[in-house]
């Protein structure tokens, strides 16, 4: 995917809009597929976070601002199409907190995409937990924290693994 940084035509505003639009569309397809196939997990509501593949891979090839715009567009559009106002709030909280943590994790230079992805998955769930507590005005959901950390780490690991394959495949493109 290095062609994204190297191709001068993609460095123009129009080029960036085209790439962002394509990635938002891909992320929406992932969200749609995920809403069609409920993954049988003992904890209800647990998701793999396929759409986070775009965020994760984008971290390595796009500017943080472009990734942020892609996330916000994806969440708003997916919310309007497959969800409701509540799902938009939860997704934004999770998506933005995980993006922030992943950007910091990447900045340290100590972690590969696997570790960055695991932290992103865990903090995605923590962001949603914070919103759940705020909406309920109650700390009861905190009991789910251990499960959310575990599930976030597992989902993050899987997504990180896939993202690693994508990154290495495109590295020499």
């Amino acid at each position: 995917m290095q062609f994204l940084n190297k191709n001068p035509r993609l460095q123009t505003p129009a080029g960036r809009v085209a790439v962002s639009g394509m990635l938002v569309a891909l992320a929406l397809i992932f969200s749609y597929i995920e809403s069609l196939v409920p993954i049988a997990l003992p904890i209800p509501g647990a998701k793999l976070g396929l759409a986070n593949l775009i965020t994760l891979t984008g971290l390595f090839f796009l500017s943080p601002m472009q990734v942020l715009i892609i996330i916000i567009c994806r969440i708003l559009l997916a919310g309007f199409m497959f969800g409701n106002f509540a799902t938009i709030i939860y997704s934004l909280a999770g998506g933005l907190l995980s993006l922030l943590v992943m950007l910091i994790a990447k900045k340290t230079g100590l972690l590969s995409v696997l570790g960055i992805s695991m932290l992103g998955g865990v903090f995605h769930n923590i962001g949603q937990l914070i919103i759940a507590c705020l909406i309920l005005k109650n700390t009861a959901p905190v009991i789910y924290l251990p499960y959310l950390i575990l599930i976030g780490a597992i989902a993050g690991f899987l997504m990180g693994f896939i993202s690693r394959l994508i990154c290495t495949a495109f590295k020499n493109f």
Partner: protein
Amino acid sequence: MTSLQSLNMKLLKNDLIILFILLACAGLLFFAMRSKDSVDGNYVLITLDGKEYARLPLDNDTYLDINSEFGSNRIRITAGEVFMESADCPDKICVHHKNIHAQGESIVCLPHKLVVTICSQKESDIDAISQ
């Protein structure tokens, strides 16, 4: 490309450390929260939108219908255990939740802003202090 150097295989060790730390956190929190659950509570506190809605004793088999602007739920108490019998929320996570009986356990219906928590009455707190 500096950003591509972050894909280096040598960083895998740090990733495994992160995995270990996350799993350790999950495990520690799991056991820290579990240890409190050993005591059976004696009443159930129902909170709607952050405000107390009702308190029901656990030793009395009954049910309670909650109709609010957010939706309807029916909570049932049977043999000292509490569960959500029915709800018209979209995800039904609260209905599928296992029965609760121990102090600190709770069932949450997120779309309806409803929290059902098992509590212990004041007497037990006084007992704990006197010990």
